């Protein structure tokens, strides 16, 4: 179940690019998931619910799909 690693990659990408600066809580993450990305959306949701990161507690994931192998973070909603 590599979705835990993917969830950590997403957090790292957000962190490293400053999107989480000063953020107390992330309410939702909108992802564009390619059909050949090898990602199970249910498992990715499960992974986010079990991250050891209070900012993502209860986060909701929203998905749109594409025909590629890409996994793209489109938008986050934060407090």
């Amino acid at each position, binding site marked *: 179940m590599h979705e835990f690693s993917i969830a950590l990659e997403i957090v790292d990408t957000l962190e490293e690019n400053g999107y989480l600066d000063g953020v107390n809580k992330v309410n939702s993450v909108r992802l564009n998931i390619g059909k050949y*990305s090898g990602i199970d959306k249910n498992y990715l949701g499960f992974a986010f619910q079990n991250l050891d990161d209070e900012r993502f507690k209860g986060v909701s994931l929203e998905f749109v799909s594409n025909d590629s192998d890409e996994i793209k973070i489109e938008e986050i909603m934060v407090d």
Partner: protein
Amino acid sequence: MLNSNRINRGSKVGSAGRSGRSLSVQRNAMESNDVIAKKNKAVFGRTFVINFLSSPGSGKTSLLESIVPVLKSEGFKAAVIEGDVETDLDKKRIDALGIPAYQIITNGTCHLDAKMVSVSLDKLDIKDADVIFIENVGNLVCPTSFNLGEDMKAVVLSVTEGDDKPLKYPAAFYKSEAMVINKTDLLPALDSDIAKIKENALSINNGLIIFETSCKKKADCGGAVNKGIADMVSFIKEKIKLKAGEFKK
């Protein structure tokens, strides 16, 4: 236990609403891994690198045991990065070939990522290598998401796995440049249809280069190098030359 029917077209997981401040991100979610993969690629330099993906038991290590001696006999230098959940059994088999090898034990993780490979590059002598084979953890799903800095992925499928494997696990076939149909010596004992395997794989990725191989070492192979292995070696040699040529430019 997760309910696989919880999402159909996957619009949402989780209970929170779309409240709060919106931040447009528009970034590759694997950016953090890909930055390290890019550094790995720079370290690889002129060396051609193949990342082998497959189910457990498809014969990746046996394939290397067949390919490497032929490459060695023609003066090419190879190195191997082995990925396994547990044990260094595969590395020991590669050690017996007399080439540099490094074992990554993932301790339960189902794939290699760029950081793991980066650590291995500090410990593996690759400076003279013409080709590096990365034998990923046996798994047709998870390793497909992680770029390691390789030049190409190749998916290995043994004929015992079923004709429909490419349709069931499309990501590995979509992302690979080559497919190796292995253990063809078993075909007489099976109902597997090799034409159907190819048709299914090509329906996912019509650019796949396909090799049919047997790594059986018994006398009924006549001791000769299997044609599929010979074709793979030719393919790899060509790739080595192309990469070295590109690197000089």
